[in-house]
């Protein structure tokens, strides 16, 4: 039935969770857009067919009992002439058909928009998790994104950086603020205990240079290491 394809898209959009995104279904998207374009062409054909047939009957060829120039449903409600009745039925059919196609096109559009919007929202939250560094996105996730979505991710990061560059001088002239920090969990402690899971090399902290080797534990300033925590290189050990 019409509208079944875009329903599949809606179901795929439902599968997008904060932890997981299914692969971009380019095949289905193309199918839905092709169906919409085909239906629109049919709508135009049907309307043109009605207009041309109304012009023909205005010359008086089909029905001599006709008084008006266009076979309008409202102008001849009580006509018993079978030709008129069948013509008005056909015109009703055509109107219904056009309405059906137009509503299907609108439904397709809605499903497409919702699908892409869900994925774009996922991308945005993913980018904030990797601190606006598109290169840190794990391989298995970036494989499932379409090229346009990867481009979107890069452009989003660039846009944020551009904003930061333009207002940094006026908003925080002395300190260097980490603009890519995820602000969801409010900071509680200034210094945190972390255990290193993957080798990060050396990082520059406010108290000097620290060498982060796998398996070691450190007591460091929160703002220095937060970006390594969200991507899993370090683990936060909570004092209970």
């Amino acid at each position: 039935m019409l509208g079944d394809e875009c329903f599949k898209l809606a179901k795929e959009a439902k599968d997008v969770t904060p932890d997981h995104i299914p692969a971009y279904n380019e095949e289905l998207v193309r199918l839905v857009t092709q169906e919409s374009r085909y239906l629109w062409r049919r709508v135009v054909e049907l309307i043109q067919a009605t207009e041309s047939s109304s012009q023909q009957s205005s010359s008086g060829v089909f029905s001599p009992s006709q008084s008006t120039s266009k076979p309008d449903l409202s102008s001849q409600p009580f006509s018993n002439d079978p030709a008129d009745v069948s013509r008005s039925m056909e015109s009703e059919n055509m109107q219904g058909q056009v309405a059906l196609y137009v509503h299907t096109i609108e439904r397709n559009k809605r499903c497409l928009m919702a699908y892409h919007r869900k994925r774009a929202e996922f991308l945005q939250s993913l980018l904030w998790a990797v601190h606006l560094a598109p290169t840190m996105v794990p391989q298995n996730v970036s494989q499932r994104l379409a090229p346009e979505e990867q481009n979107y991710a890069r452009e989003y990061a660039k846009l944020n950086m551009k904003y930061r560059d333009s207002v940094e001088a006026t908003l925080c002239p002395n300190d260097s603020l980490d603009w890519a920090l995820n602000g969801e969990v409010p900071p509680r402690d200034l210094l945190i205990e972390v255990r290193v899971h993957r080798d990060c090399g050396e990082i520059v902290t406010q108290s000097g240079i620290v060498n982060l080797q796998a398996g070691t534990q450190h007591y460091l300033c929160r703002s220095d290491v937060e970006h390594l925590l969200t991507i899993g290189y370090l683990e936060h050990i909570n004092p209970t």
Partner: protein
Amino acid sequence: MARRDYYDIDDILAGQERVPCLLRVDLDGLGTAGSGTSKVQRNQRWALPYWMGERLDTEGFIEMSTPAVFSKRASRMYAASATSMQLRAISPHYYQFGLQLADIVPGLPAVLRNMYMERVQRVAQISQQGQNVEGLEFVQSLDRTEAKLMQKYQAAQGAMADWQHGRAYKLDKAGVF
């Protein structure tokens, strides 16, 4: 009437549920891909998805009638034993779909509300008890809206335990990694 978000996926999914309709005109394109013809003649009964039915009904091309799940008889039956109804088997989008139909079917908001109020108490009870074998059957019969609510309840319980053990302020790695 509740405002429906254009981008809401649950709204889109719920709108796909079928309603029985009487066609006033011939319509093409309604059959499935496998059947022979897809043209449906006028004055035939056909089950259309709600999004299609509502639009064509307001324009007069079809006449939509109440689906079986929301009929008076069914509503009375459900209200008699609200907590033992298998909503997921009957209609997984029961509440969402009912909200969409609320303007057309008289008395539907009251029916939905009563069902919801009775069942939601049981949902809260079960999620507070943690792992519970008796409640498993009820949990499997929940509709989508109730299932989401149950997940939120359980997450809230977990958050309480986390806070008590000092895990609330722990920085975690993001879910994708």
